[in-house]
């Protein structure tokens, strides 16, 4: 382990997560065996931070999946005559430059952000867990190759790498393209995390025991190594959803993310940027929803870390 001393910002959010080996493998003397996760769940249910973040996450996911539950107005049904109205009874969040109802657009904007956040995190985590556990468990040349490859991808900061590729993809940037690019640059940190976690788990006695019992590598990795080593990655992945949503909005704001006529919070602020000083509502509502969504995922990762970290018990 020579090259994991560096911390990316998101790692700082989850500083204490890499100690799965401290978890007692067997539950202490209780009637029912309490797993790490059920213990954590018991604690989480009582944490206000977790409850707030969980409610917010659910709200945003429902908003992304079923926007019509929140608004019956078509976000693309605009009339120029209504352009740039401040919030009123008819248009709760006002209207934008095209005269579209800003409330409807803000609600519909959740879909792009939340789906990109979830898609990117899901696939990056799969890549990271697969490569990280393979690398950490097998060691040798496979580990060296995979780790050097990760170093290379890690050397290109997310926003800069995405900026270069997406800039070249001008004209065809939809949710899929933006997600693919963010996945390409999003997995390295989690891969390192997974690898170091696997390295610490695989030295433990129960892995030797499983091997002595004749378990195959596949069974050892899936049943023992992953089950005990995935905790830090789960915490980090939760935070990553927020980080990715923020990155998507920033890219859209920089004109290299989603393109009109897509509806996204970053894009809404981008279109409004020259009128923000005169019409602050154009910034306020999408900015508020965006920040709240990111906040929910980061707070949830924070609460998960506190609950899953046995050192804090």
């Amino acid at each position, binding site marked *: 382990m020579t*090259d994991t*001393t560096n911390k990316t910002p998101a790692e700082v959010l989850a500083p204490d997560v890499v100690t799965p080996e401290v978890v007692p493998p067997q539950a202490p003397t209780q009637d029912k065996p309490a797993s790490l996760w059920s213990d954590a769940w018991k604690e989480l249910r009582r944490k206000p931070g977790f409850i707030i973040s969980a409610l917010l996450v659910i709200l945003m996911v429902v908003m992304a999946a079923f926007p019509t539950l929140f608004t019956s107005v078509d976000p693309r049904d605009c009339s120029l005559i209504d352009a740039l109205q401040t919030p009123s009874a008819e248009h709760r969040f006002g209207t934008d430059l095209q005269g579209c109802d800003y409330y409807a657009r803000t609600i519909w904007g959740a879909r792009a952000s939340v789906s990109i956040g979830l898609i990117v995190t899901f696939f990056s985590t799969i890549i990271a867990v697969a490569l990280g556990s393979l690398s950490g468990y097998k060691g040798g040349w496979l580990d060296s190759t995979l780790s050097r490859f990760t170093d*290379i991808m890690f*050397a290109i*900061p997310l*926003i800069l790498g995405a900026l*270069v590729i997406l800039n070249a993809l001008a004209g065809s940037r939809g949710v899929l393209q933006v997600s693919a690019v963010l996945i390409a640059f999003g997995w390295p940190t989690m891969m390192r995390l997974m690898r170091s976690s696997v390295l610490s788990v695989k030295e433990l006695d129960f892995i030797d025991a499983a091997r002595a019992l004749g378990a195959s590598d596949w069974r050892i990795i899936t049943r023992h190594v992953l089950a005990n080593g995935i905790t830090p990655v789960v915490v980090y992945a939760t935070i990553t959803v927020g980080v990715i949503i923020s990155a998507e909005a920033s890219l859209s704001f*920089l004109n290299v993310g989603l393109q009109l006529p897509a509806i996204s919070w970053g894009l809404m602020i981008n279109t409004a940027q020259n009128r923000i000083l005169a019409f602050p509502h154009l910034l306020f509502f999408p900015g508020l929803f965006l920040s709240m969504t990111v906040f929910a995922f980061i707070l949830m990762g924070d609460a998960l870390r506190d609950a899953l970290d046995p050192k804090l018990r």
Partner: protein
Amino acid sequence: MTSYIIRRVGQFVLVFFAATFLIFSMVFAIPGDPIRAIAGEKPMPDSLRQTLVQRYHLDEPYMVQYYYYVTGVIQGDLGESFNQRPVLDIIKERFPRTLRLAIYAFIIEMVIGVTAGVWAGIRKDKFLDSLVKVSTVAVISIPIFVLGFMAQLFIGVRLGWLPVTAGNPPSLYGYLLPAIVLAAVSLAYVARLTRSSVVENLRSDYVRTAKAKGLSQRRVIGVHTFRNSLIPVITFLAIDLGALMGGAIITETIFNVPGIGQALYQSVIAQEGAVVVGIVTLLVIIYAVANLVVDVMYAVLDPRIRYD
């Protein structure tokens, strides 16, 4: 130690070539006719086209093109903009401003972030600690462009405390608001990192020993805890320089700071691939060097870490 440094430098060389190759491939492997991009709407005579093809080595194989590109980068040639201004010139003109902005942001996050972190750390689980914890999550959650516009709107326009744009050439006063915005997110990370580092060190044996020797609280915290807690923070700050460069793209655009980030944004808008690649290559190299320096520094600062 020496062997560690040698190995780490070797890794850096590998990362440098691979990362530049990736950036090169990402941009130039994508189908399209770069000569058409230069010509724009106007028809181009065949002779000029031939000259340009030869000049940019477009008729050579892919790897040869990469060879020309990477030798250029090593010699400081990062390509040209459409109006044939060397990208290096653009960088020379604009980089010092970004550097100044980053340094101001750096000072702000060091002073405020470390103070808040130490403060929260020695009062673990008290009100102030919770306040720092919640407010840092809140600040981290607000994307930097939203934060920038908010600062512009409230501090710049409504309250009128600081100028909304930096001006050209920017004054120290003009840099202040963009520097605060740029610092905000990293500041929150620094505060959190310092806090957890202080909390961890306060539990350590050498702090207990120092207390047992009867040293004053001030000395225990100020010398024993504080200095050791700074190790991870220093390494984070060095890497953060890379993040600040990235954040500068957005901050400089919003506050109209004529720095490297704004140049990058403008060339994205103008679809100037060569300038985008030139600037991104430079930023990636800076980031890689910062990483290298940090790793080596870490090994020097913290003798507990063994590298072999």
